């Protein structure tokens, strides 16, 4: 083995090249927040449930370097949307068909 100067790893700068980044977790986060707000304001149970799913999908696709606080806040918001909509109207959800 011929030795040469060791160079430290530098993570690729994704700011200059946004095409390299996977936008899924960010989109899902945003969707989750929108559905949570709809579920809370309009008292729609299905919106709240979809928000919970969006949070889970965003978490599954997130990078390790991402802030856990944002994930947790997204989860909490969606779960609170579900809980609030059931407290206000305990009737079960009716299917759309």
């Amino acid at each position, binding site marked *: 083995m011929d030795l040469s100067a060791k*160079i430290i*790893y530098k993570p690729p700068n994704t700011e200059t090249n946004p095409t390299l980044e996977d936008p899924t977790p960010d989109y899902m986060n945003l969707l989750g927040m929108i559905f949570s707000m709809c579920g809370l304001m309009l008292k729609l149970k299905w919106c709240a449930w979809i928000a919970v*799913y969006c949070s889970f999908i965003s978490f599954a*696709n997130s*990078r390790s370097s991402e802030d856990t606080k944002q994930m947790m806040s997204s989860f909490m918001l969606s779960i609170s949307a579900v809980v609030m909509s059931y407290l206000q109207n305990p009737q079960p959800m009716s299917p759309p068909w």
Partner: protein
Amino acid sequence: MCVGFQELRFTLLVYTINIRVSLGRYNDDFDDGEDIAEFDDNDFAEFEDVSEDPAVDVEKEPPPRAAPSSTPIEDEEDEATVENEDGQDEFEDADAQDQDMYSKYDNEEFEGHEKTNPSFKDTLIYREVPAHLQNSWESYYMEILMVTGLLAYIMNYIIGKNKNSRLAQAWFNSHRELLESNFALVGDDGTSKEATSTGKLNQENEHIYNLWCSGRVCCEGMLIQLKFLKRQDLLNVLARMMRPVCDQVQVKVTLNDEDMDTFVFAVGSRKAMARLQKEMQDLSEFCGDKPKSGAKYGIPESLSILSEMGEVTDGVMDSKMVHYLTSHADKIESIHFSDQFSGPKVMQEEGQPLKLPETKKTLLFTFNVPGMGNTSPKDMDSLLPLMNMVIYSIDKLKKLRLNREGKQKADRNRARVEENFLKQTHAQRQEAAQTRREEKKRAEKERIMNEEDPDRQRRLEEAAQRREQKKLEKKQMKMKQIKVKAM
């Protein structure tokens, strides 16, 4: 004895009065006109009109109030009397006899009483008890479905994450020896200031693992990215059922300036070559021709070649390379050697970028893991020969040098590309230069204005005017020269 009888009579009288008083309390609906005073005069007056036994009447009066209409038919006539006095209109009967009974009464006597007989033949309407009061879980089936879906997602997340982790570890275990024998630094996450070997993969995601190797001649460093499928995301798993995709291993070797000559070359599957030619900045600029079939150089038909010039292809495609490509053609997605590598084309919002993108001498290898998604850890061993090919390529390119003609051609190509770029951005660069000049003038004027000493101010103004004059003269000279040349 006579006194005894009188006492008895008095007692009876008192008893009778008591009875009447208590009866009077029951008869609340009575008009107070018909009165206790009347009954006091004639104790038995109320019984005089009735043909039946008075005792029966006495008994009957309280119960009809409390009892429902279950016994109206039997005690009709009694009740008729009683009801008349009581006004108990609520005990209605569908029977015709009741109708007759009612028709006997004076209409004016009763207010609010409607003669219409409601029919009890109408069906009873059963109102539905709201589901949440029903005490049954079955009505919440949609919620149960949702929770089941979430649980399935979580289960899939755990299983997918573990599988990806096992695959990554299997790859690293099979390649560790080769890497450690070729590189001084294997594994670095970039967090420490000193270059220390961590000896393990750096997890970027649940499906992407990185490994940085450095400390070898002929290259600056090598970044290996294990781009697995998103097995942890159930949506992705379902999408892959429609459209199968495979795991990929991407190796990016960055070279020092002296380690590679100036050329651009790529070989890979036909689809990949077509895509790369459109997407990659250097391939689109330097390899404008359509991808050529690999059959000419002894490699399978499924592979095609993009090259800047024929000499490069001949130089790269030696026998060992051909052997590698032939035996592992199914695992090779693309191999890209370039001294002008700057990544994919970047779409800028403000039109063209003002500067040429930074380039780096790079070798980029993309390999497909066999299994088409259903990979097992054992499949990772089959990628080891490909890593050998990478090491061989690094050493080979260090030695590969273009002849004089090739070099000249390559230089001409690079100059052409630069010129094209400058032409396209000429207008924008002019604008940028103009704004810079205006900024300078403004700054100078401000400086003159801010100058407090009037003498100095005057002198600075004069100097600025002289400079402007000189510039104008220079421009005029140039115009004259151009005119003369044109003539």
